[in-house]
């Protein structure tokens, strides 16, 4: 095992996949000589050259389409969109083209494309550089969406995404870039579509993702001191999400909290909660609780007040214990 930062794990994943398969290329703004605006592609330009580390103009709509066309014609592009907020500029390419190019054309081609993008608040980057928009993409059939929160998971999931014949959106968290964690020296993959139980517990299930995994673990630690034993499930993949792991945990704890950083309304928590109510309502001993951001843009200075944290998770867990059916 070795210690590595989240941003470096992203870098290693891309490097290894580009070494493995010459059809894997990296496309993005400032990804070449500058090494990416967060440093994710540092060193790759020197290793693979301008043909494979494609520094593009600031043209999000075109580079999304370009990656789509290249993917449909034999390449396996990794597209870096500098901030998740800028994915709004790529929406035709992602939603109308990439997501539909397989189904709409009667499965004549695959679209093996990875779109990597840093999401999330915590760096005082303001309303247009801090959003968590994963639910938009999970709502579109044809895409896969993953949201790793640790160096181990981000490396393994990017490598799986590159090898997947479907379009995969990898939502990174920019406030986790400096986070250290241990990963194996040898090669490994993290499967898409499989959740990871980060902490076992018997009293309440907390389903979470990305940076909120760490808030959830912190909440679990505090609650453990009060004798409340929380199970923390890191969803890892938003679409298709691992129903089996979530349902089996709820079958054990009978109480469910879903915690994500995105705005609570219409977020992934709503989908998971609805699915649990539809499928295994009789397993629940209390109403499902959601933790998420308030329904406002991410403010520059009031970021702390905006961001959901472990305190909110603790409160939600306690509510599910108080409000028994």
């Amino acid at each position, binding site marked *: 095992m070795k210690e590595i930062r989240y941003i470096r794990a992203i870098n290693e994943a891309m490097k290894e996949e580009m070494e493995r398969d010459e059809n894997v*290329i990296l496309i993005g703004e400032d990804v070449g000589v500058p090494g990416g605006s967060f440093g994710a592609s540092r060193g790759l330009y020197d290793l693979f050259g301008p*043909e494979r580390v494609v520094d*593009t*103009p600031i*043209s999000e*709509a*075109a*580079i*999304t*389409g*370009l*990656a*789509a*066309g*290249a*993917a*449909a*014609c*034999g*390449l396996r592009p990794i597209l870096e969109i500098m901030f998740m907020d800028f994915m709004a500029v790529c929406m*035709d*390419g992602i939603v*109308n*083209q990439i997501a539909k*190019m*397989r*189904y*709409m*054309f*009667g*499965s*004549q*081609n*695959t679209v093996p494309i990875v779109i990597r993008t840093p999401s999330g608040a915590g760096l005082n980057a303001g309303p247009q550089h801090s959003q968590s928009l994963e639910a938009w993409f999970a709502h579109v*059939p*044809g895409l*896969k969406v993953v949201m790793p929160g640790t160096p181990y998971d981000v490396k393994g999931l990017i490598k799986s995404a590159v090898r997947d*014949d*479907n379009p995969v959106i990898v939502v990174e968290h920019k406030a986790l870039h400096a986070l250290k964690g241990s990963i194996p020296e040898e090669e490994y993959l993290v499967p898409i579509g499989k959740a990871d139980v980060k902490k076992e517990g018997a009293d309440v299930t907390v389903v979470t993702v990305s940076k909120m995994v760490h808030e959830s673990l912190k909440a679990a630690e505090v609650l453990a001191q009060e004798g409340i034993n929380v199970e923390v499930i890191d969803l890892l993949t938003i679409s298709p999400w691992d129903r089996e792991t979530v349902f089996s945990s709820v079958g054990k704890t009978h109480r469910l909290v879903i915690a994500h950083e995105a705005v609570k309304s219409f977020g992934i928590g709503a989908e998971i909660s609805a699915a649990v109510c539809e499928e295994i309502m009789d397993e629940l001993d209390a109403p499902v609780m959601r933790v998420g951001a308030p329904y406002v843009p991410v403010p520059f200075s009031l970021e702390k007040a905006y961001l959901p944290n472990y305190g909110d998770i603790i409160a939600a867990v306690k509510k599910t214990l108080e409000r028994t059916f």
Partner: protein
Amino acid sequence: MRKPAKKKLIQLYERMVIIRKVEERLMEVFSKGEIPGFIHVCIGQEATPVAVCSWLKDSDYMSNTHRGHGHALAKGIDLNLFMAELFGKKNGFCRGRSGSMHLADRNLGILGANGIVGGGIPIATGAAFAASYKKTGQVTVCFFGEGATNEGTFHESLNIASLRKLPIVYVCENNGWAEFTSQAVHMPIRDVADRASAYNMTGTTVSNKVLDIYKAAGEAIGRARKGEGPTLLEVKSTRWHGHFVGDAQKYRPEEDVKTAKQQDCIADFEKKLVKEKVLSKTEVRKMGESVHKRIETAVEFARESPFPDASELMDDLYA
């Protein structure tokens, strides 16, 4: 460039006739309700796809638009399976999932027509990128209308293609009408090809005459194949009918439609071929009859083909 041989001239003419007659037949069956949804015909524009695609190999890539029947037919798509897709049938190229507006045949490099104006331009640029990266020698042709040149994707894509000298030809069929509105209302310029200069790219404007387009396309595709970079080729084309079949064109002066019909690329070429004794009037008539038969066979084939089963609805969303 040498003058095209007699065989080539006849082939160009025949393909234009096929497209015209297919579109006319489609208008009939659509109006009778045999094809659901909506269709956009390219009557008046047949010269462009035929002249441009005559330079392409099967392996070359082509991307096109909602008004895309002509491009697919010019690239050589099988008429029976083309018709089956338009009828929404299971054996169509896209298993009845695309219909008229998203027709694709990957065996012929047809990347898929696009229902989003300007949506196909970056995708075609990506296909050219892949060909260039893999050094396959394939050329990409990207068709769109003048309306699409007001989209950001057009400008962003041309910029990138020129920067990287990609093997692509951007073909703008300027029929003067972006859906329901004339070019003058949308664009402060007359020639779309002028936009190429902003990207240090060759821009050429030609008339709707098939041999003019043939010559210009040959030069542009030749440049692309030699690695000399992209071209923006504009054809001053004409649209005879509405934006979609059923559009009464109340927004358009009758005089404008009349002028468009006077510039009939097929009648013009036919007159020239007969005058120069490339084809006799009898040969023209016989060709028309044979094309008619092929189209009727395709329509019958489509009618008799099965619809996809509801059980296939969820199939193959993911690989």
